[in-house]
């Protein structure tokens, strides 16, 4: 039983206005659509924070600018900012990001998740865990953790 929330009063920001993608005048069925920053952001913006009923976008944990994507090289890096420096939910948030992208992107994609430099007390330790595929795989065999992740991801499957 959690005795108290790590960050009881998070700052909640307004959601970024969602631009609808402009419909192309000529649709080429064979054209490959490149995955860009906005698409990655759309996959993750509505993930719920593990502790508060707000999305990662609303809490400014993630933003479109903090996403680096190179579709030609099938590479994406998401940098997230925990709301507080000692956030013990940082690894859970990182795991949520990784799982959502794993489920949403083509399997050729290489995904790096990291904490924004200077925003977490044990930044190197968190980053190392989040990018160790064996540690991630083992964590995802923990039913309690999987339940927590699924709960956070539920609102993001819009």
């Amino acid at each position, binding site marked *: 039983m959690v005795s108290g929330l790590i960050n009881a009063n998070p700052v909640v920001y307004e959601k970024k206005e969602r631009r609808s993608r402009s419909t192309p005048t000529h649709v080429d069925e064979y054209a490959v659509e490149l995955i860009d920053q906005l698409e990655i952001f759309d996959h993750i913006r509505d993930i719920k924070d593990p502790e508060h009923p707000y999305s990662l976008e609303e809490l400014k944990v993630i933003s479109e600018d903090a996403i680096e994507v190179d579709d030609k090289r099938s590479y994406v890096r998401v940098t997230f900012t925990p709301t507080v420096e000692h956030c013990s939910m940082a690894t859970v948030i990182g795991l949520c990001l990784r799982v959502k992208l794993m*489920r949403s992107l083509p399997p*050729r994609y290489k995904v790096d998740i990291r904490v924004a430099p200077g925003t977490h007390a044990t930044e190197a330790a968190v980053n*190392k865990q989040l990018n*160790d595929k064996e540690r991630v795989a083992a964590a995802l065999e923990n039913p309690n953790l999987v339940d927590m992740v699924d709960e956070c991801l539920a609102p993001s499957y819009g």
Partner: protein
Amino acid sequence: MNFADEIFELRELQRLEGHADRVWGLAWKPATGADGVPAVLASCSGDKTVRVWEQSPLTGSFQCKAVLEETHNRTVRSCAWSPSGKLLATASFDATTAIWEDIGGDFACISTLEGHENEVKSVSWNASGSLLATCGRDKSVWIWEVLPHNEFDCVSVLQGHTQDVKMVQWHPTMDILFSCSYDNTIKIWAEDGDNDDWHCVQTLNESNSGHTSTVWALSFNATGDKMVSCSDDLTIKIWGSDIMRMQSGDGNAPWKHLSTLSGYHDRTIFSVHWSRDGIIASGAADDAIRLFVESEDHLIYKVQKRVYIKRENYY
């Protein structure tokens, strides 16, 4: 054999399907694949099973001969055949190591080694098959003695690594154990005398030109005087020791860094292996396999094969 001037080509022979989740490890069964004995391979997976595959002498293709299931209840991470090929050890995230015996084509689990507090990541048999080593996320390395009647006794629990231990490997000729870890080091363990008193005799860390991130695997050359390691730091390192000193029982035959190969992989290098005929193979998260051969005391890279498997299903 001098491969330095040879042209290499890596050709896929067959794709074995059957596992329902990622395959984490493989092991060739000793004394198979030569002298008329069909090659046999074991593979272990996130689907909690181990599969044994045998090559057909007629067609050359591998068929699945057995599925070892209903024993581990989590990912099976690593498997290793005993030197005689009679037993197969399987290490699992369920914190146990199972020992299987091939009884007329059917594999039966004859023993389960318990003790690790959480995920077991690697298992290795010593050259004579009298000892077994395991390691895991609980930061410890366990040494087990193989006794008659399928009994296994824990001989020592080695503490020293400060993080998750990724792999253990026995030296090919001597009872010296090597382990590599998330703590970025390689540790060497030896017995003091003959009384089950195992301790760490050397640590290869950054100060000895060691790795600067998780060390995922290590492997020995055929003579056992050289070792290769690979890491999340994107490098492959070659180490050497004075084999004569080691064999004379000199506890003080230290391993030294010989060379670092960098710039060949741009993502984590998960596995490395030194073949009996002197070829080093590396596999990394950049989807590439590279082969290296030694040329006049420095390694040269020979061929890169980018392996990307198109998957229809993904999680």
